[in-house]
């Protein structure tokens, strides 16, 4: 039964909210879909990167002459091929980019700052020649002491990565440089007065390790630069307009001369919002005057692309004996990797966002160390701080002898709650998600020995941003839809459903594609849980343009005034007296007479989408700890999250399940292991243990829908929040199973076993 949404946007919903067949599905399951590494051009060369073998070293000299003389080598680029950039933060889309750091991350200049840091790149006629050429590049290093750990990096005597880095956010400005790039703080109320009111206080320290997004498709790019400077790039990215901006800036190109096409993308999760290979491929192609293709190996992905931060966290919370939170304090120390810019600021803002607390103070530090520069990873910064806070919330629940869901309900943020970071929340669904998990069968399923149940909630802001989309009505009444944000989580299907409902055409008649940077105005990237939210708004605008145009055409055809015609239920209709003289016309009807009534029919939506609604979620996990091995097995897992309105429920459920799966890996196994030499020891999926299907139960997804009043369909972004609660939910469940509070992630079998042994608990399950 068609429904009309309740946000004042009166369009019958035939497709929105249903589970349509994805338009990109056939190509994906037949192998026809072209991902980054699938694209090739005639005459293309192979590009390869020479990377630093040291964690920290000064570059004394680079001699590429022998490599350049090798037959088959067509170009070599080093730092000298990239103009230096001034140190200033420049808006790039919605991000602030310090191109001085970006150019140094693309190719090292004065120093290498992590193992794997690019030093030079070659383009050759074969892989073998390219590899040989890399060995012929002579780089002289002065090896420097390195620092990997975030707390060690903050010490005054720590090896210094950047001699010009002075801590921002402290007064007076420090006299000496350090590895602490920035101090940030938010506060609400009076934290000391809050703790004075507390009957129970829990204070804990936590550590988390950097974890990689683990996208299955490595970074890949093909670049072709013509003799007149026109540049084309095909790459796997979350934002081809951002790739265009970065490449143009780094290489001094006109943006209008650079055209970027996004391939199908095999995952990104924030990790493909930055550039690594693309500027190198362009520089090599420009020099070689031939197309150049570059693809990272998995080892390169681990060593040289950005994971999220590892961190050290202190949390102190106070509550009254009846379970009211009265004070929340936290200190967050986040690794940024080799260059400043960890997600500590959102970590600070999110730490206590799920709760209505009068007194909050959170301090954060952005710290550089000799690791790859971090990149975004779903809800960047939030999973780390909320893991610590949600663990402490669970301890408070235990001390107060209150059910952990009930304690959260007592303190949950609601509409009108003042967030710790400032503004009051509008309509939000945290309470609904807590009630949703309470009502599951899982919540009351009896648990056995060594089994535990954990719960945790999470928050993310979500964003909108600059977005363009077009709709074109073809001669036969079919509709071509073009969006400018890569489709990672079902964007094409979702936007096609919105377009179908807006225009009253069958879903199957809408063909959505992702346009290149020359086809649409600027689009910010697919990230921040924005693409469906913003894209749907742009489609609504494009459809409005079409409907207004068709109404104007009909008024002329029927000799009526403009206000005597309306678009309703997929047809242009005459209104008022005599309306029945005119047969309503569908979009397909107009397509047949488009030429005779004014020409081709199309609409263009171009917006800076505002009004993103935050999304809250609550996760419930049942697990079992093997006391003999320390292995944790997830038995049951439920995600309840507020989607606002699920355009395509299956895709929303997929986001919930994917976030939970990644969070399970973050909680139980994933970590970067460095040797004393500062080199990464587990740069591969064999040793960097991500969950696979056999590690996971079916993850149940509950769609809570509290409509976002600022969106025509009520949509909230859903992609970020699902990765926020899993780590605490799992740590809380393990505590309930073992009585041991684990505060250091990952809670891997060796750690569990060690803790059990220390307590004399590591006996087999039967107790023998």
């Amino acid at each position, binding site marked *: 039964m068609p429904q009309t949404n309740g946000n004042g946007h009166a369009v019958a919903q035939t497709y929105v909210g249903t589970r349509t067949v994805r338009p990109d599905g056939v190509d994906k399951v037949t192998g026809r879909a072209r991902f980054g590494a699938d694209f090739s051009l005639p005459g293309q060369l192979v590009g390869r990167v020479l990377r630093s073998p040291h964690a920290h070293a000064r570059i004394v000299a680079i001699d590429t002459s022998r490599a350049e003389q090798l037959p088959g080598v067509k170009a070599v680029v080093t730092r000298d091929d990239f103009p230096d950039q001034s140190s200033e*933060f420049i*808006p790039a889309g*919605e*991000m*602030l980019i310090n191109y001085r750091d970006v150019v140094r991350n693309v190719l090292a200049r004065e120093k290498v700052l992590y193992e794997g840091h690019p030093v030079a790149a070659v383009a050759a006629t074969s892989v073998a020649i390219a590899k040989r050429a890399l060995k012929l590049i002579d780089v002289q290093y002065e090896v420097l002491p390195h620092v990997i750990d975030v707390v060690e990096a903050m010490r005054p005597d720590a090896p210094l990565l950047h001699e010009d880095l002075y801590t*921002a*956010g402290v*007064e007076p400005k420090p006299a000496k440089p350090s590895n602490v790039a920035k*101090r*940030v*703080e*938010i506060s609400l109320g009076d934290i000391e007065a809050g703790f004075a009111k507390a009957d129970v206080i829990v204070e804990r320290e936590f550590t988390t390790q950097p974890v990689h*997004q683990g996208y299955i498709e490595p970074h890949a790019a093909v670049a072709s630069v013509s003799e007149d400077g026109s540049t084309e790039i095909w790459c796997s990215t979350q934002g081809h307009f951002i790739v265009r901006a970065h490449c143009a800036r780094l290489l001094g190109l006109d943006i209008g001369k650079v055209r970027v096409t996004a391939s199908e993308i095999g995952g990104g*999760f*924030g*990790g493909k*919002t930055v550039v690594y290979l693309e500027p190198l491929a362009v520089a090599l192609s420009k020099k070689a005057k031939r197309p150049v293709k570059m693809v990272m190996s998995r080892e390169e992905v681990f060593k040289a692309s950005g994971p999220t931060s590892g961190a050290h966290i202190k949390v102190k919370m106070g509550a009254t004996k009846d379970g009211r939170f009265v004070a929340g304090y936290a200190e967050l120390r986040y690794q940024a990797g080799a260059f400043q810019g960890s997600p500590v*600021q*959102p970590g*600070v*803002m999110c730490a206590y966002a799920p709760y209505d607390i009068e007194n909050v103070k959170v301090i954060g530090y952005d710290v550089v160390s000799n690791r790859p520069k971090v990149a*975004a*990873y*779903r*809800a*960047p910064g939030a999973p780390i701080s909320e893991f610590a806070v949600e663990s402490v919330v669970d301890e408070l629940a235990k001390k107060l002898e209150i059910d952990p869901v009930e304690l959260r309900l007592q303190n949950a943020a609601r509409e009108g709650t003042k967030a710790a*970071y*400032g*503004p*009051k*929340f*509008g309509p939000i669904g945290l309470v609904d998600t807590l009630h949703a998990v309470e009502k599951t069968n899982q919540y009351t399923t009896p648990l056995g020995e060594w089994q535990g149940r954990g719960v945790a909630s999470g928050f*993310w*802001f*979500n*964003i*909108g*941003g*600059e977005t363009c989309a077009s709709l074109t009505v073809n001669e036969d009444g079919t509709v071509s839809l073009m969006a400018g944000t890569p489709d990672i989580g079902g964007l094409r299907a979702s936007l096609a459903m919105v377009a179908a409902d807006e225009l009253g055409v069958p879903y199957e008649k809408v063909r959505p594609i992702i346009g290149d940077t020359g086809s649409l105005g600027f689009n910010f990237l697919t*990230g*921040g*849980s*924005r693409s469906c939210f913003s894209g749907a708004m742009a489609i609504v605008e494009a459809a409005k343009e079409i409907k207004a145009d068709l109404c104007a055409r009909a008024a002329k055809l029927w000799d009526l005034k403009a206000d005597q015609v309306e678009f309703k239920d997929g047809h242009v209709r005459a209104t008022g007296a005599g309306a029945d003289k005119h047969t309503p016309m569908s979009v397909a009807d107009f397509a047949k007479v488009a030429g005779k009534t004014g020409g081709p029919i199309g609409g263009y939506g171009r917006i*800076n989408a*505002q*009004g*993103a609604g935050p999304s809250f979620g609550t996760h419930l996990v049942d697990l079992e700890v093997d006391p003999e091995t320390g292995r944790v097995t997830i038995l049951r897992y439920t995600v309840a999250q507020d989607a606002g309105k699920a355009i395509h429920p299956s895709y929303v459920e997929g986001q919930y399940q994917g976030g939970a799966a990644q969070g399970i890996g973050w909680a139980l196994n994933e970590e970067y292991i460095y040797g004393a030499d500062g080199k990464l020891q587990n740069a591969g999926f064999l040793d960097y243990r991500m969950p696979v299907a056999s590690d996971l139960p079916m993850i149940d997804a509950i769609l809570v829908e509290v409509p976002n009043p*600022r969106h025509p369909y009520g949509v909230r*972004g859903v*992609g*970020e929040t699902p990765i926020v609660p899993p780590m605490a939910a799992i740590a809380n469940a393990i505590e309930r199973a073992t009585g041991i509070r684990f505060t250091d992630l990952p809670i891997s079998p060796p750690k569990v076993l060690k803790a059990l042994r220390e307590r004399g608990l590591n006996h087999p399950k039967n107790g023998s």
Partner: protein
Amino acid sequence: MARVVLVGNLVQLTGGVAQFDLPATSVKHLFALLAERHPALAPHLEEGVAVAIDGQIYQDTLLEPIAPDSEVFVMPQIAGG
């Protein structure tokens, strides 16, 4: 007058003053008024901040209107992954 609150490190640039009552009619007007009173804020406002007007967060939008009785928070920008 709109009640304007600075969130986070911006307070360090105003000598510790976190709250203002300002006759701002738009985000652009708000930034001008803040920069006039505290010039050290100007580059940070230009670099990019988010503005929450009556609970709704706006980013990169200078033309958004501010009502006389609005509650406005000037806060760090938000991105995502």
